């Protein structure tokens, strides 16, 4: 099968398990983001793909071939390091040509390749510059060009944009995505920035504490988070716990909520995004899916309005737009509506 497959991969450093048993499939040609808080094992996972860390157990397959034991320098994967790691003693052109030169590619072919790659990363005519004279964004592009020089099967990047300022980062995200689409190369990017992952990825792998929580396209990660960690890490959410009280019904403090895909019995937690909660003035009829609450305070940010509500002692946040703003103020009694399709049942983390 084509693509990158992890089969029960485990990585331990001594007693410490950096990556717990993970099985994962990354289809050919996709842009994948490994997303998670700092220290969750993203870099370790990426380094295992590159062969810079040996897996403690399990196998890594590329297009059906076991690459677990192949040494790094025979894998031919392009990798961009977090600190870029440009060779300080070489010029821009020599840096990019390095993988070609050591393979005995002729000087004129190297020059042509360098020119093509510099055009690709939009740094034409920079080949002769020493790397120490480049700006952060330019170094970034040179590191990308060098990693792509071999036309690798896999393009790996470890927090490639973290050193750039916010504005440049956003434009580089879009550029990187366009570059990947143009080349059609399977790309794996490590990031701890969920906006960055949402912007670039076809597929997001959400991790925490050495475990993969969910693998899905960005929109699905947002709309259908699998567990409380994912729901909370991606955007903001309201977590509401309750007990099944009938088919499709959940008894929560203050009333009953409706949701799809509820188990038959037991305790469950729901995730409801703030923008899906509707608030109306006046204490409601207390039908299923609607709870009575009180406004704690309202934050009007112009483009959006955040309403902080107290519902049966629990803090609930709702967001609305100016055109839908209900006529309420702090201290008012309100009805809080939780649409059935916005209530996502979470699994165990």
């Amino acid at each position, binding site marked *: 099968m084509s693509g990158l497959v992890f089969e029960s991969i485990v990585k331990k450093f001594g007693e410490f398990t950096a990556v717990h048993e993970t099985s994962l499939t990354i289809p050919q040609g996709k842009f994948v983001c490994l997303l998670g808080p700092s220290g969750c094992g993203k870099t370790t996972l990426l380094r295992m793909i*590159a062969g*810079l860390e040996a897996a403690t157990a399990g196998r890594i397959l590329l297009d059906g071939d076991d690459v677990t034991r192949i*040494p*790094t*320098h*025979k*894998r*031919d*994967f*392009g*990798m961009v*390091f*977090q*600190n870029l*790691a440009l*060779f*300080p*003693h*070489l010029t821009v052109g020599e840096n990019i040509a*390095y*993988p070609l030169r*050591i*393979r005995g590619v002729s000087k004129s072919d190297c020059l042509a390749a360098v020119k093509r790659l510099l055009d690709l990363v939009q740094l034409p005519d920079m080949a002769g510059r020493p790397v*120490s004279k480049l700006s952060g964004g330019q170094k970034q592009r040179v590191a990308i060009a*060098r*990693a792509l*020089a*071999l036309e690798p099967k896999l393009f790996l990047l470890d927090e490639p944009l973290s050193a750039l300022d916010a504005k440049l980062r956003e434009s580089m995200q879009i550029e990187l995505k366009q570059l990947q689409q143009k080349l059609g190369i399977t790309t794996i990017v490590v990031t701890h920035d969920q906006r960055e992952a949402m912007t670039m990825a076809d597929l997001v792998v959400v991790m925490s504490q050495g475990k993969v929580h969910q693998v899905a396209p960005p929109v699905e990660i947002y709309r259908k988070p699998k567990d409380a960690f994912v729901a909370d890490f991606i955007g903001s959410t309201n977590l509401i716990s309750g007990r099944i009280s009938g088919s499709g019904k959940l008894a929560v403090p203050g009333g009953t909520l409706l949701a799809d895909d509820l188990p038959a019995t037991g305790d469950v937690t729901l995730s409801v995004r703030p923008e899906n909660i509707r608030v109306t003035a006046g204490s409601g009829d207390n039908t299923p899916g609607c709870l009575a609450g009180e406004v704690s305070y309202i934050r009007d940010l112009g483009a959006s309005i955040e309403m902080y509500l107290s519902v049966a002692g629990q803090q609930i946040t709702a967001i609305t737009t100016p055109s839908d703003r209900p006529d309420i103020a702090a201290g008012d009694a309100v009805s809080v509506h939780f649409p059935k399709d916005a209530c996502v049942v979470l699994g165990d983390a």
Partner: protein
Amino acid sequence: MKIKPRTFSDYATIGFPAGMLMVFFVIPFGIMIAVSFFQRVQGAFYEPAFVFDNYARFLTSFFGGILGFSIGLAALVAVVSVLLAFPFTYILTRMTRRTQVVWLVFLLSVLSLSEVLIGFGWSTLLSRTAGISNLLVALGVLDKPMSLSPSFGAVMTGMVYQTFPYTVLVLFPALSRLDPSLVEVARTLGSGPVRSFLNVVVPALRNSIVSTLIMVFVFALGCYLLPQLLGKPSHWTLSVLITDQAIYQSNMPFAAAMAVFLVLVSLSLVAISLLYGKKENAA
């Protein structure tokens, strides 16, 4: 903000080291320079004068040849030491903290051995009766034990043994500061371990290597016991001759002239190494 020193007491803190430097370095060196222009009195010691005889004698082919040999030997020792110590130190910096400490303590203790001990140690090890040639015979490499000392090889061995720990300690900080991702990125780009070392580690530390070479060179230039203990008279260096002139021939002015010359050579090389170091920091 930097505060400029104003009063005399602001300068007092550097008074002590400055005084020590005066008493133990500047004044003796000044005396030596003065003596190098004095005139030797046959059968006595020397008398004040201002002659260039001592420097002129130095320019004869005999002393010129010895100067050439001394510089060549020191250069060879420096190159061999760095060639051995650089890969060794690189591997050492990749070891665990514990291993590094054990090795560094071991090297420091070798460093604490005096030249005399090293000289006699090696002359025993290289001798016919008790030396390593007996081991080679036991292993079947040699037919019968042979004496490996005195010889040029013995001088080289002793001097490299003496300078090796020094070289490792000088290279260690630069190599442990080297960004490990440089080597890793070279590996992802397709170079094996040896090629990554030669293509990335060595050039990235080019300036450290040059300044270490110069420092070891200067260090080796000052060696005066090992060439005597492990070499034939033809392997004697300028430092040996200085000792010989000063102590056995009682020709202080000539010894002083040679010493001044040697110090000037050393100082100019140290200056070059400092210039190199500055450039590396600026880059």
